[in-house]
């Protein structure tokens, strides 16, 4: 409660003008003041002033929020809404025990890489044996609560193959070495994204190291378990101590890792290490757009004209001497070599990009993904209305609040469909899944592919 009380002064900066309601994805769908930032701040203020007890409806009020950060980004008075909401959740968790199921999932599974792997293997087995279909069959499906059905759709919408980021391709003429931080969601549910990222990095001249990392801690943080988030942060900081740069292809992990500095700011042992660690974290697009990238040939699309060129010793890819190591390369704007990336000749593909909350607002990365997409021949980037409006996924929000997530997702899907794009690219595994589900509901037969940006770039995604 103390850390929340410390924030009360900044909460008082809210002059209740109501402008946060104009950017809140949940308010837009419900017009419910209790879901707005202004409302939640008033409730937290009432709690701190002793006029309100932290009962069930208080907890609901705290958790009826996707934490998309649109309110904090938009607040004229600069109220750190998201920070206050997280502190309130954390204060509540300290005061009352987390429900057993949550504790088991977040602490017992997500925070334990070995068990997580086991869990994913179990899911794979489930899918291979067709067991998961049981939950999809008519009668059973109708009996399941919406949140469980949502979890099933989320987990089994594509074939699972378990962790498979073992054989990392080597860079031909390495410029240096980067450490990759694969998030739990990409490595468990979208290993092809991990492979693509590694391939992209290798093609662009980077040797990739892959420490066996722990969960970034964001799921724990948003569920008020700061203690576990700190524990995971310390472990990751130690694991990545000796590398110069940490690249991640998950918007949420990136935001969490860059947030370690703040999370551990008061930690006597780790405070300074956390600051150094956060400073070396780069989102994949931030890193590639900054240092230059070579895109691979499209799978299946035979390159016309000259044979594929290795990004190479002549430094043609980046216009920078190959001898330049990472330190020399710095993070200056780099080029994009897409000469190997082939689409059918002359064809133009409309592609739209969705800004994940944790990337656009969480890390301020908006330009770089667009820069990379625009560099691909044959790709026409068509912006949707409000590309940085939340998709409604919010990590576990889509299971815990399936109804609300569906409404917000519907608005996102309609914005995507309005662009007429055949592909929507984004850079967060949660967004990928949520947008897929929302498009299935809204598209009425229109086929729009949803792809993670790393997969789109790194696998030579066939358009």
């Amino acid at each position, binding site marked *: 409660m103390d850390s929340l009380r410390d924030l009360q*002064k900044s909460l*008082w*900066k809210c*002059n*209740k*003008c*109501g*402008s946060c*309601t*104009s950017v809140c994805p949940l308010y837009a769908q419900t*017009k419910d*003041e*209790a879901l*707005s930032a*202004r*409302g*939640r701040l*008033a*409730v937290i203020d*009432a709690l701190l002033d002793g*006029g*309100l*007890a932290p*009962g069930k*409806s*208080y907890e*609901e*009020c705290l958790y009826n929020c996707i934490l998309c950060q649109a309110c904090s980004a938009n607040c*004229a*008075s*600069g109220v750190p809404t998201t920070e206050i909401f997280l502190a309130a959740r954390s204060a509540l968790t300290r005061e009352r025990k987390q429900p057993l199921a949550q504790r088991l999932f977040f602490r017992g599974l997500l925070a334990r890489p070995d068990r997580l792997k086991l869990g994913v293997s179990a899911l794979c087995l489930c899918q291979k044996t067709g067991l998961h279909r049981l939950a999809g069959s008519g009668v059973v499906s109708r009996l399941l609560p919406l949140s469980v059905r949502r979890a099933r759709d989320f987990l089994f919408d594509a074939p699972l193959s378990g962790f498979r980021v073992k054989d990392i391709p080597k860079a031909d003429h390495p410029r240096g070495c980067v450490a990759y931080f694969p998030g739990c969601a990409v490595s468990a549910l979208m290993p092809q994204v991990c492979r693509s990222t590694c391939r992209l990095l290798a093609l662009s001249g980077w040797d990739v190291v892959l420490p066996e990392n722990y969960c970034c801690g964001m799921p724990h943080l948003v569920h008020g378990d700061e203690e576990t988030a700190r524990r995971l942060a310390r472990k990751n900081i130690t694991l990545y101590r000796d590398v110069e740069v940490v690249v991640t292809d998950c918007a949420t992990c990136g935001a969490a890792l860059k947030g370690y500095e703040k999370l551990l700011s008061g930690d006597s042992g780790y405070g300074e290490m956390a600051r150094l660690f956060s400073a070396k974290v780069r989102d994949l697009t931030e890193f590639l757009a900054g240092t230059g990238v070579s895109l691979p040939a499209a799978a299946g699309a035979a390159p016309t004209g000259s044979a594929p060129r290795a990004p190479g010793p002549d430094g043609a890819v980046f216009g920078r001497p190959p001898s330049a190591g990472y330190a020399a390369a710095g993070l200056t704007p780099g080029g994009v070599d897409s000469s190997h990336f082939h689409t059918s000749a002359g064809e133009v593909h409309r592609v739209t990009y969705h800004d994940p909350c944790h990337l656009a607002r969480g890390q301020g990365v908006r330009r770089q993904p667009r820069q990379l997409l625009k560099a691909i021949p044959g790709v026409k980037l068509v912006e949707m209305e409000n590309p940085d409006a939340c998709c409604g996924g919010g990590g576990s929000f889509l299971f815990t609040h399936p109804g609300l997530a569906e409404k917000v997702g519907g608005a996102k899907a309609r914005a995507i469909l309005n662009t007429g794009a055949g592909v929507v690219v984004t850079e967060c595994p949660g967004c990928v899944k949520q947008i897929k589900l929302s498009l299935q509901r809204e598209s009425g037969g229109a086929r729009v592919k949803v792809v993670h940006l790393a997969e789109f770039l790194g696998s030579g995604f066939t358009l």
Partner: protein
Amino acid sequence: MPSIAAQDMLVKELKRIIDPKRVLDTPEALVVYSYDATTQQSLPAVVVKASSTAEVSGVLKLAARLRVPVVPRGAGTGLSGGSIPAAGGIALVLTGMDKIREIDRENMVAVCEPGVITADLQKAVEREGLFYPPDPSSLGYCTVGGNVAENAGGPRGIKYGVTKDYVLGLEVVLPGGEVVRLGGKQIKNVTGYNFVQFFVGCEGTLGVVTEATLKLLPSPPARRTVAATFSKLERAAETVTAILYSGVIPSTLELMDQKSINYVEDYLRLGLPRHVEAMLIIEMDGMPEAVEAEAARVVAVCRDMGAAELKIARDSAEADQLWKARRAVSPAISRVRPSKIGEDISVPRSAIPDMVREIQKIEERFNLPIVIFGHAGDGNLHPNILTDKRDPQEMERVEAAIQAIFEAAVRLGGTLSGEHGIGLSKQRFLSLNLSPETINFMKAVKKAVDPAGILNPGKIFGSDM
């Protein structure tokens, strides 16, 4: 607050006529419907989210029977406490009634429910080549119903008037639950009393608006923005009159005083001149040829009046740049002190320089930072006192300063509020501005319409009804 038993009965009875999911009485629901954009707060006994005129009528009938106060509420963005449930009772939330029922292109009118967000209405009619001019700064999140109830204005008032100038027809639920329809799509209509205007600006004390028929204009195809700075405030004020006298009615004519210029500069570093006493932002709209000619004349007038610096936007990006300064005033001054209390006096245009000098004196006398900006074209100024609402000693000074501002405004032939309303915040000062006979007449009308005194009690006239 009624007794617990009475409250339980009220909730039970409400749930009989309204979907129980939309009848809320958790502590959290009561808190989030207890405030607006002022510094005040008061908990309702129960929150009802209405979805139709019939439901509104049902709630009012029940409230009349049980003698429970009802406070209609839109998005709760008002600046005078109009939607705060000051006497408890039912917070009647209308944001769920958010359909635009019709956009009639031939007759250039829109028919919409009270919960429609003003900016959404503007966007919808723009898609039809039409224009709904009223533009309160909260247009992105306030509602049409609230705009009607408070007679909201905005920068465009000088050329286009305010909400009242666009309301052609209303459906209103009276305090007894009766539904009346007034006016319609007609531009001219003298069948019966002109009671449409009676409900515009009634601050939710006479009836609940459940549908509004609004006049639209053709969308102006061209816009031109000019910004001019003046080393002396008087010159800026004289320029306002000179521009109008030259035959141009700009669509907006905004004034920023030296303090607001400096706070914006601290906040955004736009390169605004810190030493000038005033800046005017002037926008013309209409047919392209007319706009060009008007802009040229405005520039000439500003030069003649000795503008220190003159900027003319060549395209919409440059215009945005000029507007950025004006739009940043609110955020910039919000960051200076924990709270800001925005007043809303309206004086005859010619009294603007005197009014500003008076406010500067008040600022010194009470030792409180006061920023002045507003709609110089129509005399509507927003002196904002930067303070800390949690400092009771300072708040005493703030109250005294507010009183002094109102006294000065009235002395200069002005009024307490241009576009925010009286509500709770300004009722203490009502007698400064209106004679006892006028106030008594208003009270008598209120009593005739709402004999039980259930609709938004305690507003405008205070508890002394």
